């Protein structure tokens, strides 16, 4: 199976409460360490699990290609992903202000047309913009099935996946015939969330994503990393949405500390009047 994983570099998702607004009303993430959007790390982990026998994660039984839209600096993230186990990387040269979800989807379609993967995996949304749209749009442009917000995947032979989508208070199971677009949630990296056709049904992975071994990081320097131009992929680079200024949400002031349960119940009754 050949899998294309679309990834995005973002400001440190664990410290987004430290963002500031510039005088022009734009979000300023200066000082926050750039990282892969966590759901994209989960998408890569999913791709690796689908192209291996869980009992021998060193042997890649398929091909995993990572692709990002970003500046030169984003190559550091791609190198790290090559170290983690991806076979090849592609960077489409672009800056965030020249992109929207629709343009990324159209650019990705051109990459898919070239690469012809069986499956495209993405995080269900990226951690900065949180727009949850690229996978769905890509599926439409390709004419492929989509499965979004997926928390579990089992492969059935080479051509089908059974996926569990998380919906409000429930999961919806679908069987999709490849090629398809799948977007993943954090629970996809739980020990038994992904089963490739090579992996025993009883196999349990360590919880979370794997980390690159030192040897693998060294070897990754020799793995191919190609650069593509956005304009070659999407002749029409007009944006369908344009962001203006941002606001900071009203700060919730810290309230009061109550001394005991009695005082808490009293406040909820007489002050907040919610019980």
């Amino acid at each position, binding site marked *: 199976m050949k899998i294309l994983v679309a990834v995005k570099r973002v400001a440190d998702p664990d410290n987004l*409460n430290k963002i500031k607004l510039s005088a022009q009303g734009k979000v300023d993430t200066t000082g926050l360490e750039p990282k892969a959007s966590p759901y994209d790390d989960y998408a890569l982990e999913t791709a690796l699990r689908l192209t291996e026998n869980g009992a021998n994660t060193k042997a890649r039984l398929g091909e995993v290609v990572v692709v990002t839209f970003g500046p030169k600096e984003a190559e550091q993230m791609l190198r790290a992903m090559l170290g983690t186990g991806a076979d090849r990387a592609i960077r489409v040269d672009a800056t965030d202000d020249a992109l929207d979800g*629709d343009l990324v989807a159209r650019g990705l379609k051109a990459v898919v047309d070239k690469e012809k993967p069986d499956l495209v995996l993405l995080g269900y949304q990226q*951690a900065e913009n949180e727009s949850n749209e690229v996978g769905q*749009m890509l599926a*439409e442009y390709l004419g492929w099935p989509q499965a979004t917000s997926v*928390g579990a995947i089992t492969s059935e032979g080479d051509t089908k996946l059974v996926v569990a989508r998380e919906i409000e208070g429930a999961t919806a199971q*679908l069987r999709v015939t490849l090629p398809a677009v799948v977007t993943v949630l954090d629970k996809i990296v739980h020990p038994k969330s992904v089963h490739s056709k090579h992996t025993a049904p009883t196999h349990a992975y360590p919880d979370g994503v794997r980390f690159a071994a030192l040897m693998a990081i060294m070897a990754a320097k020799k793995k191919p990393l190609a650069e593509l131009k956005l304009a070659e992929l999407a002749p029409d680079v007009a944006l369908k949405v344009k962001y203006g200024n941002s606001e900071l949400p009203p700060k919730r002031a810290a309230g009061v500390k109550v001394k005991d*349960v009695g005082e808490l*119940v009293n406040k909820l009754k007489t002050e*907040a009047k919610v019980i």
Partner: protein
Amino acid sequence: MAGTLVIAELSEGKVKKSTHSAITFAKQVGGPFAILAIGAGAAGAAAELAGFGAAKVVTVDAPSLAHYTAEGFAPSVAAVAKAGGYDVVAVAASSFGKDLAPRVAAKLSAGYAPDIDRVKVDGGKRAYRRPQYAGNALGWLEVTTPVHVVSVRQTEFAAAEPSGGASPVESAAKAADDAAAARVEFLKVEAGKSERPDLGEARVVVSGGRSIKEQFKQVLEPLADALGAAIGASRAACDAGYAPPELQVGQTGRTVAPQLYVAVGISGAIQHIAGMKGSKYIVAINKDPDAPIFQIADYGLVADLFVAVPDLVKALKASA
């Protein structure tokens, strides 16, 4: 007819409450709006939707639409939107809306404003505001295409009440499926078993963190019972297996905005706060006085939760 097309969300032929938030959005945009009810049994839902002041209710009802898939629904939604010449296509940002709307937008070559919390109408121009950066920034955006596709955050658009009257109902033929529809097979929906109110709709939510460990149910259920609350959990508690995944509140889980949110043993990670900071009142119970949750809590109680929660249950029962 220009105006807004609201896509109703149905469940087994019944209108889901999320639909009422999308109707409120349409009323804020102003001008005429229509409601599209799509799904098997949609014709039966039309009567319920006819009392909201819509110019009309359009139904697309076919047995093959018994189970939602984007590939099955998007072609008909796009066809109805095109036929009516609507300026805005709106749906609630539920799992249904979030899955469907971007595919519809791509089909219509329309710009998409996802998960918005405000709309500003200035003459013929509309700007949309949406939470980003885990709720730490609110970004305004404009859609540059003639047609706008919008999904609206249910917690920020109060449910519309029926306003009486009876909108005319017309049926539209189901559009041909996307070729991709033949490659998606619906298998089943497995509901989380719960007698409690739905997290997204509860007046009170009681949430627990990892520090409650295996006693998650024992500690939280009596408190939820005493408050008539839904139960939520932090991602850490879900990841550790102490709480089922469907209870997760936060960036990757549910976004909630109840009247009262009681955070028990939750430290207040950014991704959790992103999912609950719209709550009217927040109570935090945590033994660590420096836990970040106290910075946003209206009422903080620094205490051992295993002592404080049972005491709270007793006090609530005594004062009831």
